[in-house]
């Protein structure tokens, strides 16, 4: 399995990384447009890379940690491009570009030595469970980043002493909407992913599936996001509270991911 296209992708993504580094170090960057174009091109090559892998292996390309990482980076890049197209939030690039780069780099460096698939992953619904969950997480990460940007800008405006962030971050209304939209896209995706996971788990692991730490954490995670969606849509929460809650939700996501190391079923390869 060649990683040629993935390295091409990475070369383009590195431009985005450069932009982010320059922005942080010099507090401004003249290469945003270039790096945006590079991200767009990289995104196309990334698609080629995923398609090549999928076609040669004849399966959905989420078979091991490296592949999942590559696919996830692809989704975040997609999310960024959509968010930028809709809201012109260029400052989001400072957070999103390095994330995309690092996940793709990790994928490119480990993939040739990728371990064989666990039998579990050959089941038909499992790749779909993984892809839906990853898509949901990508949307939730965007929602999280929007929440972080909202909170920083809100702080600037409440303190009335504008510093660097005030000039560079988007308006509150923009990040609030982006956060809400990403949440409303992400929640159904993780819900579907969770349902598929449950069906699979009960079918293949028997009665013990509920006791799996990852499964339990995922439920907690899902309830947190359910509450968040309800508070935003039903109660009319917005702004600071919603942003804080979104960040808590992300903490739960990270926790549930790290539970992959505790769960015997959620390891990508046999132990």
């Amino acid at each position, binding site marked *: 399995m060649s990683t040629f296209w993935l390295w091409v992708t990475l070369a383009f993504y590195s431009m985005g990384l450069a932009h982010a580094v320059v922005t942080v170090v010099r507090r401004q960057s003249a290469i945003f447009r270039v790096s945006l174009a590079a991200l767009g091109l990289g995104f196309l090559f990334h698609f080629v890379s995923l398609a090549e892998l999928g076609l040669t292996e004849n399966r959905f390309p989420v078979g091991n940690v490296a592949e999942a990482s590559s696919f996830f980076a692809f989704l975040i890049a997609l999310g960024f491009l959509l968010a930028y197209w809709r809201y012109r939030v260029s400052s989001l690039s400072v957070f999103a570009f390095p994330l995309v780069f690092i996940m793709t780099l990790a994928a490119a460096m480990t993939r040739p030595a990728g371990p064989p698939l666990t039998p579990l992953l050959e089941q038909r619904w499992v790749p779909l469970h993984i892809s839906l969950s990853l898509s949901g997480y990508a949307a939730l990460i965007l929602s999280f980043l929007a929440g972080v940007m909202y909170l920083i800008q809100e702080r600037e405006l409440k303190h*009335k002493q*504008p510093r660097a962030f*005030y000039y560079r971050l988007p*308006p*509150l209304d923009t990040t609030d909407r982006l956060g809400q939209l990403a949440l409303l896209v992400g929640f159904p995706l993780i819900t579907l992913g969770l349902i598929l996971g449950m069906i699979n788990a009960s079918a293949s692991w028997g009665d013990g599936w509920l006791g799996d730490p990852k499964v339990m954490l995922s439920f907690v995670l899902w309830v947190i996001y359910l509450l968040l969606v309800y508070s935003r849509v039903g109660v009319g929460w*917005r*702004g600071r*509270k919603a942003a804080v809650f979104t960040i808590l939700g992300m903490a739960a996501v990270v926790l549930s991911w790290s539970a992959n190391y505790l769960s015997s079923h959620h390891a990508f390869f046999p132990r």
Partner: protein
Amino acid sequence: MPLTVVGLNHQTAPVEVRERLNFSPAELPGALQNLVAQPGVIEGLIFSTCNRVEVVARGEEGANLPPLLADFLAAQRGLDRSDFERFLYVHRGREAVRHLMRVAASLDSMVVGEAQVLGQVKEAFAAARTAGAAGGVLEFVLNRVLAVAKRIRTETGIGTAAVSVSSVAVELARKIFGSLENRTVFLLGSGEMSELTARHLRENGARAVFVAHRSHERAQQLARALDARLIRFDELADHIAAADIVIASTTAPHYILHQDQVANLLAQRKNRPMFFIDISVPRNLDPAINDLDNVFLYDIDDLQHVVDANLRQRQREAHRAEEIIERETDVLLSRLKTLELGPTIAALQEKLHSIRASEWEKTRHRLRDLTPEQAQIIEEMSRATVNKILHLPISQLKELARQPDGLKLIEFLRRTFQLKD
């Protein structure tokens, strides 16, 4: 390069001096013609605004322009040179180019980054071109100066941060609401400041404006000016929940809105954000309102703090602009060096004479039995031919190089004859 700027501005001269030296647009063409008629002046430009009067001139090699230009100003304005000489600054060569760039990029302005000055430079340039006073090196320099100033406006944030209280209010509203399209503005009271701010908000898309009032007369006037709806103060509670932006400037000696009232409004609005601007002294809005989520309250001091911060921000951006100008000045000067008339003519002569000399060498070898006298006659003939051929184009070139687009001619010549820099 013999470019000289002589002038004074708001930093060096008081308004009483500036106003006496000011040129009106109608006076410019005549003054420009007088300027280039001065001995030693080849091209010139007069830049006159309310903040500065500057004369820019390119002189002949060795001309001592500063006293000449000061005398020119005095003569044009019917003043004595000693009346204003102590306020004058002089920039020459590289400094002159750098100064022009700084002026056009609004680094030398009273409010750094203000947008007007670039248009004024453009007008002055157009006037000089129309009057036949700038076309050649000065034209080339000014084109470059305008391009650099535009680049600075787009690449740095020198003109983006708002620096007046009312425009800061608009900037803050944009930071909160994004677009102001169809936002509702409420004016409590009818001060001049709130009218200006409301007008700014309207220009940026805000729609419905309400004026709540106690004194009917002034409020009616204001409502007409802003195309706003009038409501009485006692009706306020029925309407104010619709307000996205509230500007308070009444003369009431107490708070007219308290935190709990605003908390109620927010509940009615499903937490849609509100922006309160309190420009009244004593303050009309309870400062505790700012502690509520999704509500932002700025009083007059807060707005002033933002103005100050924005000015500092412009200063930071101005540093970046200065860096750009240093680089662009070097680029421009080295470009100019390749486009100087004298070296171009010398290179052209050298080129043709070297062709002539090598052809003569070949011919002489073939005509072996020439006497030295004959050889000398033939060589002189070839030399004279080349000089005669060159004479007309060179004198034309000297003339045309000072016309508009003159430097393009030099560039054309350098390319067609492949003259080296």
